[in-house]
């Protein structure tokens, strides 16, 4: 689960954001929408522990992110927060399977091979496991990125514009996929998007202004 209180971030005096409080329980889905320049990406980075807030609190799995720093924050992020970026990034020199194992190893120092294979199976890309990321189609890459985000059973799954480049049919598919997988993993799903189509799919939403 994830919870925030009075979150504020300022790039400078002119560009400051005060974010509404967020509360999303395990297995639930929260949609955060808003047009460009409303701080969507900033909020996602705050939630992901990639950026420290100016003030306010973020609580994930009963841990305040503000209490963590350096190596402990890196570890916590790797373990409890799964992030699916708009564009799927991978370590280009490693296979899809190795990329999943890497996520496991960086956060927990172990390599759970059956888990990786199971996730790839569940996301229907088991056949691509030994391929390099560059050899995958855009859709397959996104699935692989979701699989990787779920490798460490995160408490929160953050998705940044997961459907912006997709047509209606595929947008629906990805939205369903994210919801299913987050529920299967018992993670709170937070989707940050400007894609209005998703509002029809997810009821629970907050709009940034």
């Amino acid at each position: 689960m994830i919870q925030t209180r009075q979150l504020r971030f300022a790039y400078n005096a002119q560009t400051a954001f005060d974010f509404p409080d967020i509360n999303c329980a395990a297995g639930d889905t929260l949609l955060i929408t808003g047009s460009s320049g409303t701080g969507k990406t900033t909020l996602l980075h705050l939630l992901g522990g990639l950026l420290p807030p100016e003030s306010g609190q973020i609580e994930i799995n009963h841990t305040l992110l503000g209490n963590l720093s350096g190596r402990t924050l890196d570890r916590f992020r790797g373990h409890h927060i799964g992030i699916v970026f708009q564009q799927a990034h991978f370590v280009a020199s490693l296979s899809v399977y190795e990329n999943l194992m890497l996520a496991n190893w960086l956060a927990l120092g172990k390599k759970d091979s059956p888990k990786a294979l199971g996730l790839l199976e569940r996301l229907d890309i088991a056949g691509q496991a030994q391929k390099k990321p560059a050899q995958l189609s855009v859709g397959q890459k996104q699935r692989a990125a979701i699989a990787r985000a779920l490798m460490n059973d995160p408490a929160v799954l953050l998705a940044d514009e997961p459907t912006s480049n997709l047509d209606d049919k595929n947008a629906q598919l990805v939205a369903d996929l994210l919801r299913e997988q987050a529920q299967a993993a018992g993670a709170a799903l937070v989707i940050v998007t400007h894609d209005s189509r998703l509002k029809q799919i997810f009821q629970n939403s907050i709009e940034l202004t």
Partner: protein
Amino acid sequence: MIASIAIKNILHRPLQALLSWVLLTAGVAIISLLILLQGQFQQKFEAGIRGIDLVMGAKGSPLQLILSSVYHLDNPTGNIDYAEAQKWMKNPMIESAIPLAYGDSYRGFAIVGTTAVYLKKYAAVVAQGRVFQQNFEVVVGAEIAQKTQLAIGSAFFGTHGTAVEGEEHHEHAYRVVGILAPNGTVLDNLILSNLESVWAMHDHEEEHNHEARDTGKTESRHDHDTEAHHETTEGEQHREITAVLFKFRGPMAIVQWPRMVAKQTDMQLASPVVEMNRIFSLFGIGIEALTWLGWAIMGLSALSVFIALFNTLKERRYELALLRTLGGSRAQLLWLLLLESLWLCAAGFVSGIVLSRSALWLVSRATEREYRFSLDRFGFQWPGEGLLLLLTLGTGLLAALLPALKAYRLDISKTLANE
């Protein structure tokens, strides 16, 4: 895990890796080969000089005298009168004086007339048989025994001079009575007899020539007669040798004798240390130039590693930011980039070392053929090559330092927001 990712990242850009690797290999190979050659030449030459303060021989180039009589790498400057030399050899200031007489050779290996002191000077051990005692008995160096299959009891005819294909002396055969254990000095490539064997062979040659002249030219008869007369009257006294190796009890004679000998006789005294230093200072310029070339190539390889890392840093910044979101620490990114450079440098070092050994082997084959001088130290050279390893890895660290620090300081949020 980071280490294996580093290797995969290197192999992911094979051409760039190849360029850096080839440059590193070339740089390391050049420097390592110089270390190998310098070490071996110096060691071999210094081992040869040890215990020889001055060398007496016929007038001519002092360097040639040293090269011929100490290292057996050149032709002798000429012969000197044994009786004349003995006047100097019996001086109380002398600790040891070893006469050397050249004349014949066998399949290109010199047969040298000398005394048992010569064997002692190089701490030679007779592996089989015994030391020469009678005329025409010889002791054979280890390498010759191996290459020519000469064994105890073998008999062979010497060839006049040092040429492989020359006129053979069929009057007397040499007989092998001893074979030396290999000891890494010039002895490995010499056939040793007593002085009298060389003189006896020489006398025969004279007779042989006289006969030829008797039947051939009559007008030279007068000359021949006087010559023959001269020989018989001087008798055993007129003996020639090629050089004498001197070791003195104190430093005084080393300073004074060369001038005295040059003034009073038509011989010369040459100092092996002085001559070899002259040779090394000549070599030195070339070696120094090559060393600089080696370092320049090392510098280039460092630059190529740096450029490769720095360039890919741009396209890899998302990848690096991703590693951070997956739980990787700053230190791990730093380590990843340093390792990518260090692996390359380590690979370049290993292949450079292998390459320098291959080159040494080729050089050794050539010197073996030309000078019967083999370079056989293929082991790791301490401390020279240890230092080279440190410097290579240091170069790798230096080349990767800036890119690695950039990765360390990467702002993940900014990087990912710019996608």
